[in-house]
């Protein structure tokens, strides 16, 4: 799957789970610090939603290692392709 395709799908998921009215506008460098709605509680909700949408499964190691959205997408790519 194309990286930007992943991003567009991710944006939808973030906007839906975090109900972001102005849109998520995710980039490689986006972190939880940039989105107030993204916290410990919504994080796991996001993970679950992403896994469902992309039919993939993350390990707890992956979940904790990501420094930003870019790194998350990297591990998604490795699973999707």
């Amino acid at each position, binding site marked *: 799957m194309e990286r930007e395709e992943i991003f567009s799908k991710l944006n939808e998921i973030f906007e839906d789970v975090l109900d972001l009215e102005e849109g998520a506008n995710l980039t490689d460098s986006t972190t939880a610090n940039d989105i107030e709605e993204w*916290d*410990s*509680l919504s994080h*796991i909700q996001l*993970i*679950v939603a992403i896994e469902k949408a992309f039919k993939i499964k*993350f*390990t*707890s190691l992956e*979940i*904790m290692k990501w420094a930003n959205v870019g790194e998350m997408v990297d591990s998604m790519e490795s699973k999707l392709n």
Partner: protein
Amino acid sequence: MNILITGGTSGLGKATVELLVRDGHQVFFSYLATEEFTAVAKELETTYSNVKAIPLNFCETESVDGFCGKMKEWDLDVLVNCTYVGKPQNTYFHKTAPEDFMNAFEMNIIPTVKITQAAIEVMKKKKFGKIINIITEAVIGLPPMGYTLYACNKAYLMKLSDVINKEYTRYNITCNCILPAYMQTNFATVDERILEQMQQEHPLKKLLTVDEVAQSIKFFVDASQQVNGVKLPINAGTMLL
């Protein structure tokens, strides 16, 4: 002593039943009459002669009232309020419907109030009693995200414990609270990856077990009546780390 434990077929309640029964106490415990729990209840009753299981559904007024009616016969010395209906973590405060506040209160506080009042009636007469309320460490400081209902209802119950200290200590009835950290039980089912993370971040690298908390319930059961009004956190001192 004659001891009533609510929710005795799983998690902390079950561990407490098994611990106190071995000390020779006459243990009564309530259980939700599902197939699974009924089986557990029966097994406990057959394994131990000094155990009696009574079905109870916190969500049905008749069930609760019927249960309280039976309590008079048990001549209780100790009441352990253990049952909580619902899971600790739900959603944010602003996304929690007012009806959910009502329901959580009605299914948890009201039955606990009725059972505690029934116990106090007996204890006042005999001028002896111990009430042990299972709260949660979430009442200390700021609760985790999504804990609105659980933390607030438990805070209500903890303040009720202060009321009991104020009004019934003179009848030689004590009331103590235990504030346990997260325990891995069916009650709070958490994504296994969160669990792994919690474990790694835990100062002892292992989560609290129901048996460890049951030991502190036993402490209050065995303690002198001078031990009263205690709020005992069991959280590896991590609360504020």
